[in-house]
């Protein structure tokens, strides 16, 4: 690797202009000429010195966020191509393009241009499909990345703000996806817009006003596509770009988290430097993601707008679903018994639309945003964390996460209840009725099952540390008894299994001092927090103490003497 050029050590502030490179003796030729030229003008060496040796740890799950980043880049590239031909107008024109089954029909200009991109622009359909697959992959990768961060505790101090930025990115990506999905002005996306129109109108008191504001009058109006276009190609990408920059800047600032292991501490990062290893790995992965998207777009058709036809408020198609990331809200709306409405004064509160639609979305993002702070409070934890949790070592958090995923999954499943009914030959009503029950029951089951699995894994870890690894060799002793020898595990593995912090449930602090005066302690732990804390960590299996470890080893030495050592 090229070494950074010798630069005179920078004195303390005020930072002088670095003119030494040009005026001093000719620089040593350790860098290629072009690099030197750039360094003299932009100070590349300094940036490179700090940046190129930046270390990233290796784990497959750390690449989930990269999938999101790369699909976003693909979205930008393909999006630019699409803007060249897309016409964001709801003006009605006669379709005269290649697709014969639509010829002579009156369609909106947006729909006609979507058909033109699909059938008349060279490579247009491929790019349209890459763009749509990339959009689905983008949101999916963000979700998977967020789950990884949640289950490994990577949101803990000092990364709470980055977690919040991530939550913001997630929300923005939903807006980006939905606004783009609606642009072709086809029957399916128009039905989706009608759905959103309903959500907006269900907002109490101001709903109708908001609808008129968004749609420029009654649904569907004539403005929406051009407004969504602005949101989709200008506003949302700008916000996403800004948030991604902040997200990545904070990753660089905090340094990447790593899984625990020998030699990995809270104070270091063990991995490969950006240059050349991670540049190759990450750069290569970009091309793999791009290639996978092209492959998907070339082989699997997506969003065949020509089949759905132009949007017409009087028409609808069976099997209308939104893209996957809105599916759970669709499912919740299909789930809730209809007609739940109250009238107060001259206002209407349509709970059966507002609660599943607006309420659930608000709930999800509120819970996500608050979680790092809630968990820190329950653990009384103010320390920094750069080593990741193994999910089993936070049993209640892991169980809560799985319960949340299960609940989401039930809503999600119900979003496809009609497809399930026709494809598996079951009654639509039976599907909906069972999910109405399962959406409450399954998360509870998932919580307890996951928690028990985590605790069992913790117990297994403890056993492994204390008694070693099962050798798999059964030995019959002279008295006729059978025993299995255990091989001691390596120091490194023992460290990995025991390095995590053992949290104790918080104790409620005294509310009054010995004179019966109320304490005013900002760090006081309330009874409620103490109870929640006990619920959160009270069941954790204790990791072996040094004394226990010592004793276990003695026990082994004492009792296993008659075991044939060579077997283990």
């Amino acid at each position, binding site marked *: 690797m090229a070494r950074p050029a010798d630069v005179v050590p920078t004195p303390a502030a005020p930072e002088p202009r670095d003119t030494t490179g040009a005026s001093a003796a000719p620089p040593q030729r350790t860098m290629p000429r072009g690099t030197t030229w750039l360094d003299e003008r932009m100070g590349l060496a300094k940036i490179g010195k700090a940046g190129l040796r930046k270390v990233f740890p290796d784990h497959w799950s750390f690449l989930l966020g990269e*999938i999101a980043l790369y699909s976003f880049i693909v979205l930008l590239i393909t999006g630019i191509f699409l803007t060249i031909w897309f016409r964001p107008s709801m003006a009605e024109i006669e379709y005269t393009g290649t697709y014969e089954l639509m010829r002579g029909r009156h369609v909106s200009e947006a729909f006609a241009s979507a058909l033109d991109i699909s059938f008349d622009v060279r490579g247009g359909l491929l790019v349209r499909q890459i763009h749509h697959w990339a959009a689905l992959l983008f949101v999916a990768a963000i979700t998977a990345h967020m789950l990884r961060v949640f289950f490994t505790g990577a949101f803990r101090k000092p990364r709470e703000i980055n977690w919040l930025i991530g939550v913001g990115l997630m929300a923005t990506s939903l807006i980006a996806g939905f606004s783009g999905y609606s642009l072709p002005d086809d*029957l399916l996306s128009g039905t989706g817009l009608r759905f959103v129109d309903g959500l907006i109108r269900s907002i109490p008191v101001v709903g109708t006003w908001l609808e008129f504001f968004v749609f420029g009058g009654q649904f569907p109006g004539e403005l929406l596509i051009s407004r969504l276009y602005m949101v989709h190609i200008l506003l949302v990408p700008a916000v996403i770009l800004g948030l991604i920059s902040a997200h990545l800047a904070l990753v660089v600032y905090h340094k990447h988290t790593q899984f625990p292991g020998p030699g990995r501490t809270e104070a270091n990062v063990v991995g490969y430097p950006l240059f050349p290893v991670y540049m190759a790995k990450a750069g290569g992965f970009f091309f793999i993601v791009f290639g996978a998207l092209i492959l998907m777009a070339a082989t699997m058709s997506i969003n065949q707008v020509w089949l759905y036809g132009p949007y017409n408020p009087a028409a609808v198609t069976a099997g209308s679903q939104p893209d*996957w990331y809105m599916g759970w809200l669709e499912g919740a709306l299909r789930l809730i018994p209809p007609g739940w409405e109250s009238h107060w004064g001259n206002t209407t509160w349509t709970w059966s639309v507002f609660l599943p639609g607006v309420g659930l979305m608000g709930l999800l993002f509120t819970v996500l945003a608050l979680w790092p702070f809630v968990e820190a409070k329950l653990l009384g934890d103010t320390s920094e964390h750069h080593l990741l949790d193994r999910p089993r070592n936070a049993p209640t958090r892991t169980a809560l996460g799985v319960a949340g995923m299960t609940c989401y999954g039930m809503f999600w499943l119900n979003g496809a209840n009609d497809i399930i009914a026709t494809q598996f030959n079951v009654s639509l009503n*039976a599907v909906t009725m069972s999910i109405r029950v399962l959406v409450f029951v399954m998360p509870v089951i998932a919580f307890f099952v996951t928690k028990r699995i985590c605790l069992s894994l913790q117990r297994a870890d403890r056993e492994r540390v204390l008694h070693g690894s099962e050798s798999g060799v059964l030995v019959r002793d002279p008295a006729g008894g059978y025993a299995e020898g255990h091989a001691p595990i390596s120091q490194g593995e023992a460290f990995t299994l025991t390095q995590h912090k053992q949290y104790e449930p918080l104790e409620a602090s005294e509310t009054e001092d010995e004179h019966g005066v109320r304490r005013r302690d900002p760090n006081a732990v309330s009874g409620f927090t103490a109870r929640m804390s006990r619920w959160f960590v009270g069941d954790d299996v204790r990791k072996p103490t040094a004394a226990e470890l010592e004793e276990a080893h003695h026990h082994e030495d004492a009792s296993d003497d008659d075991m044939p050592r060579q077997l283990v």
Partner: protein
Amino acid sequence: MRPPRTRRRHRAARPAALVLALILFGSLYAAFVPSTQVAADTGMSGQVAEGKALYQVTCSSCHGLNGEGTSQGPTLVGVGAAAVDFQMSTGRMPMARPGMQAPSRVNTYTAEEIAAISAYVASLGPGPAVPNSSQYDYSTLTEEEIARGGEMFRTNCSACHQAAGVGGALPNGKYAPPLTGVEPLHIYEAMRTGPQQMPVFSEGAIPDEDVAAIIGYLKTMEEQPTLGFTLGGFGPVTEGLAVWVVGIGGLCLVAVWIASRGALKR
């Protein structure tokens, strides 16, 4: 004194009187109710008679001996030959087992048998007849007319049968079946007779040339080349499944490979 007459009448007197009375009432009934039914019965063609015989073997247990309907099946008076032709040619009738809806199966009846039963059911009351092929022929339609058929399809049909005609779910285990691979004749008959959950689209609502346009749209759509793997044509549900399984799943496999290349694993 006369001996008591133990047998005052001839032993055949009572049956004879019964027969006489039956004949008398029968003749009276025939005289006072000179219905077309009787005329039709007498003029019953060979095909109708054959159909009636077949009907009584295969259909009457649910639809009644004379097509009057039972608790198990609706009346067939007035459904017309088109309904019988549709239900039997697509294998929906006779039903294999009771259920919310009769699924289409392989038809095991010959065209003659179905024609005979159709003729018999048509004789029960007036109803839509089996159309001749000129009524739904779409080969003479222009592209614009077929495109208009698409619009009518989206307005009238896609709410249940889905925009690509792959079918859709209806409440309580009922469903709108897929339209791909269905004979134009059967689409026409289904629209006119409204089988099972389907509403009737009568000639007054959608004239023959519009039906032909809709059929033309469906058939032309089927002939379009599919652009790659269509994922069943179900739209976003299978697309979402694909992006999670193929996209995220596949890229995770690659990620495992990328991250496993190194001396400092984990």
